């Protein structure tokens, strides 16, 4: 393979991308060297096993990915703005919508939520870290390198172009030749390892590490939604792992699981993909539900209405999410009977979802609403998500779905649920927990600008798409026809509004870092749950003394009774894990092995695999028992953090 095949050539936008990547990496290397920060980077971040730092790295990566996939989106919307637009050709458009969708789901939504869980869940349950901190670091780095692997594809080798759903036979070795689709398969496989590990890790953490007194039904609702989500992950992700592996074997070693030749079963891919894929959409919405519940209860200054019902509806939704996957291909011709069953199960999901909406509304009833930025994101979610939900029900009516399927109506639906649900949720959560993470609030005034730009842009962008769908505009076309012009140009304007909103949001991070007042109390919002009981900055061990939980909304309860969680006389030495570079190094090796496999350099990939096995062997002889933080050090930390 010559260099000209290795690098993607001939496309001005991609050259610009290469230049940008070179400049940015150059600048980062220069700055790190100039300010002598390499050691700091390695010691404090790359080798950390602290859940709070890992969470921050997750969120930073997710924001970067939101930027990348958002740029993809703006390019697509530019191309679709006018009927004669010739900004992207067909091939390039196909690559861009594929990377857009894949990155948004795998490398933006999930890591963003997992990042918030990392930071918040141990603190909400009164724990000092995850059950398996080392594994947590490994999860992060495998996600990170998976994301990197996926992102290099557009300059090296060529981006995948078969859609984020990658249906076979299109995505097979004949109709998608070259390394592009391999990037998809291996990048998802690599980051999927991390997701599955997080699933087990958080499940065990929540089961085994809750503070004394916190029974399951006294857990904060975000912890509950995380807990259930982890069950979905543990049951759904293995399906994806296997499906990806089968397609990889098809493409690289010539088997016939999903091919046309050799009587493969191409539709089996669609089944496997959605047996994972539908639960996946609930993996990214349930944690957002949890965030909204926390934010709404806090800023309405009221207990969450119907806590028990909220929990049970999450559980019910999670269970149902495994029974509806066929609604993604009602049009496959499975017959009226099969479609009827899956129509009913699909619509049934709307019942617990509707109940949740009413519970949120009832939480607002006789409350005292503070319209902070975090609360605004949560409030905007309620009506917007309702639109997404009812159009979901329309799609669930299989006979009508024959008309909606593959059209912009579908595109509008899932953006209404994913953006108004997941993305608003991520933003609400980030703004809400930001003081816990960085010791200062985000500026409220700029935050509201970002909010209004983004939310109004969102509706302008996606509401017209329902009508485009009804007018017969299919998804994934790289140009429009004149009949669809008006609504498309409106939609594009909205998209740029969202882009602007995001830019303001990011600017706010910089502005607040420079100018926001530093946090003193650790409880800036008058919070209800235990994460607000820790001081700011949060010490690495979180809780000097493990709290005892008596009531639901534990910290609120303590504040009412005038109790505090810190009692100097009860401090004991705390056992903490040591930092280690192994997760980073192991994931880097996996990255290189996967990269070799993408280009089908088999022997290099085998060498990589062997190295991974060796590092796993080394790890299993690792007798590092961690260390103890002694009482004096804890007292000092607490005194300075609490201003005692």
């Amino acid at each position, binding site marked *: 393979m010559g260099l000209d095949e290795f690098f993607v050539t001939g496309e001005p936008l991609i050259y610009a991308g290469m230049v940008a990547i070179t400049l940015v990496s150059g600048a980062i290397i220069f700055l790190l060297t100039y300010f002598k920060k390499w050691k700091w980077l390695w010691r404090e971040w790359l080798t950390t096993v602290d859940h709070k730092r890992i969470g921050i790295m997750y969120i930073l990566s997710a924001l970067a990915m939101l930027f990348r996939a958002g740029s993809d989106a703006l390019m697509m919307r530019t*191309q679709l703005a006018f*009927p*004669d637009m010739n900004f992207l*050709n*067909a*091939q390039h458009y*196909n690559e861009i919508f594929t990377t857009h969708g894949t990155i948004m789901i795998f490398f933006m939504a999930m890591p963003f939520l997992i990042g918030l869980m990392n930071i918040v869940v141990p603190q909400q349950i009164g724990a000092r870290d995850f059950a398996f901190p080392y594994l947590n670091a490994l999860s992060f780095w495998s996600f990170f390198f998976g994301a990197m692997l996926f992102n290099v594809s557009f300059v090296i080798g060529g981006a995948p*172009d078969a*859609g984020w759903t990658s*249906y076979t036979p*299109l995505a097979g070795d*004949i*109709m998608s*030749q070259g390394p592009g689709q391999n990037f998809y398969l291996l990048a998802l496989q690599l980051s999927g390892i991390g997701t599955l590990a997080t699933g087990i890790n958080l499940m065990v953490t929540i089961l085994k590490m809750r503070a004394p007194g916190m029974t399951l039904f006294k857990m904060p609702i975000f912890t509950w939604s995380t807990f259930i989500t982890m069950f979905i992950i543990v049951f759904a992700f293995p399906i994806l792992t296997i499906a990806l592996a089968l397609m990889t074997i098809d493409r690289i070693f010539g088997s016939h699981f999903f091919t*046309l*030749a050799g*009587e493969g079963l*191409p539709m089996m891919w669609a089944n496997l993909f959605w047996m994972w894929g539908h639960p996946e959409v609930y993996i990214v919405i349930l944690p957002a539900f949890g965030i909204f519940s926390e934010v709404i209860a806090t800023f*309405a*200054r*009221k207990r969450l*209405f119907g806590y028990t019902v909220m929990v049970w509806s999450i559980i019910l939704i999670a269970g149902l999410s495994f029974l509806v996957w066929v609604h993604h291909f009602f049009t*496959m*011709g499975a*017959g*009226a009977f099969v479609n009827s069953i899956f*129509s009913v199960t699909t*619509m*049934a999901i709307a*019942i617990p979802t*509707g*109940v949740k*909406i009413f519970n949120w509304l*009832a939480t*607002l*009833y*006789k*409350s*005292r*609403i503070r*319209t902070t930025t975090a609360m605004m994101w949560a*409030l905007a979610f309620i009506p917007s998500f*309702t639109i997404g939900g009812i159009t979901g*029900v*329309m799609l669930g*009516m299989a*006979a*009508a*779905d*024959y*008309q909606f399927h*593959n059209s912009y109506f579908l595109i509008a639906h899932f953006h209404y649920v994913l953006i108004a649900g997941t993305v608003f949720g991520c933003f609400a959560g980030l703004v809400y927990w930001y003081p816990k993470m960085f010791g200062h609030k985000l500026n409220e005034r700029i935050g509201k600008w970002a909010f209004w730009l983004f939310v109004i842009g969102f509706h302008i962008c996606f509401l017209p798409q329902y*009508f485009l769908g*009804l007018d*017969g505009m*299919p998804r994934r*076309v*790289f*140009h429009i*026809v004149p009949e669809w012009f008006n609504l498309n140009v409106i939609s594009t304007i909205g998209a740029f509004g969202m882009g602007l909103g995001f830019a303001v949001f990011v600017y706010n991070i910089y502005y607040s870092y420079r100018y926001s007042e530093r946090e003193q109390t650790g409880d800036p919002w008058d919070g209800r749950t235990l994460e607000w009981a820790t001081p700011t900055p949060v010490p690495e061990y979180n809780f000097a003394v493990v709290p005892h939980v008596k009531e639901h909304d534990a910290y609120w309860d303590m504040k009412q009774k005038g109790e505090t969680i810190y009692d100097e006389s009860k401090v004991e030495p705390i056992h903490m894990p040591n930092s280690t570079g192994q997760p980073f190094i192991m994931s880097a090796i996996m990255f290189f092995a996967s990269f070799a496999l993408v280009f089908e350099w088999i022997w290099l990939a085998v060498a990589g695999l062997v190295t991974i096995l060796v590092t796993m062997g080394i790890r299993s002889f690792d007798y590092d028992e961690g260390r103890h933080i002694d009482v004096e050090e804890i007292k000092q930390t607490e005194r300075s953090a609490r201003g005692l």
Partner: protein
Amino acid sequence: MRHTRKHLSKGLVFILIGLILLLSGCSELTVLDPKGPVAESQRDLILYSLIFLLGVVAVVFSLFIFMVVKYRDKPNRKAEYKPDLHGNRTIEIIWTIIPIMIVTSLSIPTITTLFDLEEPPESSAEQEPLVIHATTADWKWFFSYPEQGIETVNYLHIPTDRGIEFHLSSADSMTALWIPALGGQKYNMAGMENILYLQADETGVFQGRNSNFNGEGFAEQTFKVHAESSSDFQDWVESTQNSAPELTQEKYDSLLKPELVDTMAFSSTHLEWVDHGTKDGMDYSIERHRDAFAEQLELKNGQNHEHGPSGEEGEE
């Protein structure tokens, strides 16, 4: 308070006017403006569901606005504040039952429509439906009329007021036949056959397309549907039978190559030697054009809104 109420009612008027404008515009949207019984039954189902669902939207939005306006924390607010209110059995049961009722009301017509769509349209039950095999290959459509012994590429003629029984399959990638004015889609897949019933009640030219993404030429894989009276249709069939060339296997094989082609007509069908809807025909195209799939079309957007296959229809 009075002030906000005034705002609210003003807002409501705006919303109402907006809705009326919207709905009158909607009747021009292809899917809501059906030209045959199948699309009509789907349109009816959609409108029926909208009654319930817009009701849900109205309730949720009103409650939402009420809560946010009334319970906002502001100086000298009078509304009641009950921080520990956290449940009410009755109301929770009510708002569980209402969604259950809505879902039930939507399920029943969905299921009956689903079963109806598996049969030829009732309005033309006295006639046998016309059988057309619709086969896709990257990125074109073959319409074979086995009874008439003719085949067209990238355009379709159908008689009105008669059910059409499409036999869907594909020579390579998975596609979907979608004619929004006549009704919803179904997939074309290699190695299997799907049946889709559609019917036109009005004459006219409708847009048809592949709606399922299948690679570079996807956006151009469209065709025009000419719905005409049965005597016009008969004339068209006869003139095609008489004037169009025969489809040879050699010609057909070359047409399977992944690329864009213009409209064509033939006085015989490819079904004589291959049916891609069977396991035997599943890899027919792949075997012949394996390497051609690697080639790129370098497809750009056309100028002056020119898209899709062109050509004097019926002529090669």
